């Protein structure tokens, strides 16, 4: 198996006026392609912060991060943005949609940022995604007109529309009922099975966590 994530964080510090909080001290993460990793731990230990770093949203930490063989510190901000667009997909809670856009526009949002000559997108890919996720009837609706489950599926669709090699999933089922929770988790694993997509999930749900290949318990730094 190929090692696609090689992360070595010495320290991540949050500063707030006179106080500062240090998390993820001497944290190491190695992930192979197609691997499913669950990250659990109590609130405030740095689960979401870890996803921010892995997902190239946060570069303000001490340590080294090699993604797909490239040292991310050497990548320009526009390259990081391009990688977020094409290599990494975010599956978040159902509220993470732009309310002024329709569900279809929300799902197609990553397509705006596909640069010329880069990864191409076919209309049938979109059709395949919406059929698989069963959200065709709500495409023209605005998020506020949809149920929690429908919105969660829309967020999921947006996260996978570019067929990313890594899906970062942050509490995707936190506010969903049992049926919709099952549905989203199944969709996530289906991506892994069909496309060998690497899955990293932050969750409080141990049942969901135990379905992953590896469960990492984050603990508060001493």
């Amino acid at each position: 198996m190929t090692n696609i994530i090689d992360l070595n964080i010495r320290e991540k510090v949050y500063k707030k006026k006179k106080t500062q909080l240090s998390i993820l001290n001497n944290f190491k993460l190695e992930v192979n392609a197609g691997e499913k990793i669950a990250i659990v731990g109590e609130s405030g230990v740095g689960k979401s912060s870890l996803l921010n770093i892995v997902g190239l949203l946060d570069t303000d930490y001490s340590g080294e991060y090699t993604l797909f063989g490239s040292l991310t510190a050497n990548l320009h901000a526009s390259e990081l943005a391009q990688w977020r667009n094409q290599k990494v997909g975010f599956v978040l809670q159902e509220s993470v949609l732009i309310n002024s856009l329709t569900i279809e526009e929300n799902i197609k949002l990553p397509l705006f940022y596909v640069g010329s000559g880069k990864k191409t997108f076919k209309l049938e890919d979109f059709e395949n995604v919406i059929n698989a996720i069963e959200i065709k009837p709500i495409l023209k609706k605005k998020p506020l007109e949809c149920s929690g489950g429908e919105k969660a599926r829309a967020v999921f669709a947006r996260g996978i529309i570019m067929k990313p090699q890594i899906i970062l999933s942050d509490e995707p089922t936190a506010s969903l009922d049992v049926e919709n929770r099952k549905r989203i988790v199944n969709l996530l694993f289906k991506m892994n099975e069909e496309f060998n997509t690497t899955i990293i999930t932050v969750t409080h749900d141990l049942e969901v966590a135990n379905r992953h290949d590896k469960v990492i318990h984050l603990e508060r730094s001493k």
Partner: protein
Amino acid sequence: MKIFKFFITKIFLRKMIFSIGMFLLFFMANYTIFTTARLILSTFQGYQEIKIMDQEGTYIANLDPDSNIDMDAIVENGTQKVYDYLNNNFKYAFYTDGFIASLPNNDDMEISFSYMNEEYYKLNQFELSQGTDLNFDYQFNKDKEIPILVGKGLSKTYPVGSTIKIEVPVLEQSMTLKVQGVLKQNAYHSNFYALNSKTYYNFSVFLPVNQEFIEHANIDLQLNGLMDIVILQTTKEKVANLSEIMQDNLGLKFNFFSQKENYDYFNEYYLHSLKIMSIITLILIVIITCLSVWNALVSIRLILKDFTINLLVGLSYSKLKKIFYSYFGILFFINLIVIFLITAYSRYGNWLRKDATFVTYGFFALIGMDWFALLVVFLSDIIIGMIIIEIMLRKIKKIPISLGVLQ
């Protein structure tokens, strides 16, 4: 372009505070800068114009504010006596305008006659676009034609060489006037005591007056001519005597001020208020800019989730910066267009109202000072825009774009 269009239509325009709010604030800032820039430039032009009077021994008449004009008490004989005294003892620049005459023209404007003597004409050095300068040594009632200059607006109806037979308002007799030259477009005269205020000569007739002309003119011309008469190469004592002669013959007290005294007056009253106005404008601009920054930051809070989602799926800060600059550029451009339209309409309104003394010719109706003020607005927009956008971006970057912000 696609991303920019998306941000404009789907995000920015959906937030009233970021579209209408920003537009109104920018409009307030732009209009304030525009009017102040125009006022300052116009005053500067007046200042330059009035400089010609700034010579040793030059005194300008000014009717004492406490004098009551009783027209019935003033007789033509009295004014003529004053002119006789002037002719015998002084060199003086005579000018009076605003005498409306019915002179048919293509634009159907009421035509204003301006009368000036040779000294005044020499002092002002009016620029001509066609023809030759006025000559003042014609013989009244003997020469068949009196040479005149016309404004650009009259040059089509009355080109150089053409003659006009008209009852001259101040002579109450019919005369033949011959067009000798055409004044340069937008030739103007500034008010001595309100330098930003201008009278434009595009629909004026300049009629040269000499001693003989004044003798034959009615009391209106004679009296009006004394109001701002400029005495040249004289002394304070001599003009004091003149003031007494005027008091004796007209019953009006005239003060004579040197240009230095006029400047002091200008500095004390007008320049001072101009300074206050400029400071108030500057304060207003700072306040409006602060309000715009505040408005932008409030907008950012409202749109932060939308920005963050876009950053998640591939937007970069550099692209966001370009989007902001383009958006603000469009807002400023629309503002400039609105100010341009308001100004053009105001200039054109003078034509509609047939307001001959304010009618001007310009590029798309705007004259030089308007374009200059628009340029100042444009430059200040660049500065205001950069301040707001850089503060906005700094604020956005300060808020960690993370999943936490979204959830």
